[in-house]
């Protein structure tokens, strides 16, 4: 029978080591490492990245340091069939970059309408919380883009991925990872 013996393939390797480009070199890093090394973004513009980073940080503490921006940027820059994004499971139609662009654009427009031209990243933490609560409840006036509740769910899931869904994230919560096969270094 063509099956693998238990744990035979548990060789180590980095969880979610993804291909990033530094200069003209392709390197394999975890999203957190990519963030620490300041890897240049391929698809997201600076303002989009800033909004995404601060919203995800407000949703899941430590998401920025864990590389949420670099992760999303890397994922929406490659073929959708290879994406690890939850957007895939939630029936978002590729290219996934369109969804993320529309989502962060709508967030900033919604914030600007409420807070005299500010962007999400400029909100106080109380203002950010109340905006997110209204997103959950689909109560942002004049919102244009994918549903507010849906955007909340997708981005929250992405942020949970980078913070908790890694070997380090499991360890931090005291949950044994107990993999059969850890993700490969190169993919």
């Amino acid at each position, binding site marked *: 029978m*063509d*099956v693998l013996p238990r744990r035979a393939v548990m060789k180590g390797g980095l969880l979610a080591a993804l291909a990033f480009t530094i200069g003209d070199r392709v390197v394999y890093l975890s999203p957190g490492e990519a963030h620490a090394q300041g890897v240049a973004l391929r698809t997201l513009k600076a303002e989009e990245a800033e909004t995404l980073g601060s919203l995800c940080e407000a949703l899941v503490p430590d998401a920025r340091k864990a590389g949420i921006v670099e992760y999303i940027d890397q994922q929406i820059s490659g073929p959708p069939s290879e994406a690890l994004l939850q957007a895939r499971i939630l029936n978002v139609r590729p290219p996934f970059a369109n969804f993320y662009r529309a989502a962060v654009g709508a967030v900033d427009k919604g914030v600007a309408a409420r807070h005299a031209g500010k962007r999400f990243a400029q909100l106080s933490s109380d203002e950010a919380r109340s905006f997110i609560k209204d997103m959950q409840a689909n109560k942002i006036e004049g919102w244009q883009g994918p549903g507010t509740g849906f955007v*909340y769910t997708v981005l929250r899931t992405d942020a949970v991925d980078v913070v908790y869904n890694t070997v380090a994230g499991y360890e931090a919560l005291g949950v044994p990872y107990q993999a059969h096969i850890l993700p490969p270094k190169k993919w």
Partner: protein
Amino acid sequence: MANEKVDVVIVGAGASGSAFAATLAKAGKKVVLLDSGPDWKNEDLISSEMWGRRIRPAGPPFLHEGKNPFGYVGQAGWGVGGAALHYFANFPRYLPTDFKMKSEHNKGLDWPISYEDVAPYYDKVADEVGVSGDAKSEEIWRPAGKPYPMPPMKVFKAGQIWKKAADSVGMRLVPAAVGMNSVEYKGREACIYDGWCSSGCPTGALANPLVTYLAEARAAKAEVRPMSTVTRVLTNAEGTRAIGVEYFDGKRERQVQEASIVILAAWTGQNPRILLNSATDKHPNGLANKSGLVGKYIMTHHIANAWAMMDEDVQPHMGTVGAQYMSYDRYPKTTNPNAFGSSYIVAGTSFKMHDYAGSRGDLFGPELAAHMKKAAKGLIRMNMFGEEKPNAENRVELVTQKDEFGMPLAKIVHSYDEDAVALWNANIDAGAKVAKATGAKETWSPRGGMPTSHLHGGTIMGKDGGSSVVDSYGQTHDISNLWIAGPGVFPTEGASNPTYTIFAVARRGADQLVSKWGSVAG
């Protein structure tokens, strides 16, 4: 280059396609399986929720409409093994009442066969793919059958807590029947309860098609052609016979595979889409659609969740994603006075990070971080799957937008009726009662959107070509050498998870095809 004509071409190498392939290839037929996705191997089944998403579709060919849209990708497969490559392998049977909804209740539809017709195949499938459980204990609800080939799976703390709580409110829980190995089976390893099943189990402990029917089919020389997306079934000039299928290969080149028999096993949404896209002047409304019912009667289970947070460390990461306990106590379709339909109960599963986070989708920021800490020690869940009645308005139909191969996309239109909504609410109440009985200080049962699970119908079976698309074996009424496999042929959906019945019905159909091969294959 033209492909050589074969005896059988099967569209979709998932659960139902593999079951047909194994039977036919072992009977000496030359079988080709075409699958639109990759040829996954055990080595590809990486233990990670994130990496596990690669084995699901990206960009489904369906749009959604209606009050309760169906969550397509979460339930779909992509590539060899289909959705059964990463399913939870809960293996409850349908009960006799599921086959007789119309005659017993004057609602919905009847199957053209009864439980007794399928029961021998439940026993066969259990032996063939390996089922763990305690058949005897299920016989308080169903007719007797053979014992399962393996004893029940291990029970962990979550299961023990639910069992005690259910006992205290008079709900009977028995060991769950699952397509997993409690002990080594047919050279496949026993489960080690690490809970990675829905990212794919690479050890063979979970009965996915790669290690069961597809392995048997391959050993009997069936050919699997991955990255082959079928767009149409082709018919002869008179429109009386299927002659093969059109598909696009991995290089996006058009190919034709001729065959004496064509079997569609591309799941509930895709089979009607392909049939509707195969219209010709002889079949202007799509193939096998003289009844006008192709795409109609789409059904999906709704799920009621009851959560509890225990103070003690219950090690929620231990176990499998399948259930530890099950119950048919709420299965009789008139269990609730104002909410018609069956319900099937499962309790005690293992969790990963998204279960912890998803159990309280409303929390974010520091509250989410605090919840994650608690959940990783104390979270437990009971689920109730509920039935909806067949309703022709719930349907798959083609739309004008096209996919990369020029094939029209389809939309799935789905709304629950009043009975289904009432049943879901009744199930939430029933689950909440058991959750309270666990003694947990914190229990909750979300009532936001109705979660959907499993897809059935769209090519339903019935007695004749006026009221159904196929007969009880999957043979279409209109074109004798065109067959359909999978939950799409079910005229009612019961409340049980469908795959045990998918396998049983497909194996029954495949045996019939072999036995009347001469008259069908021509």
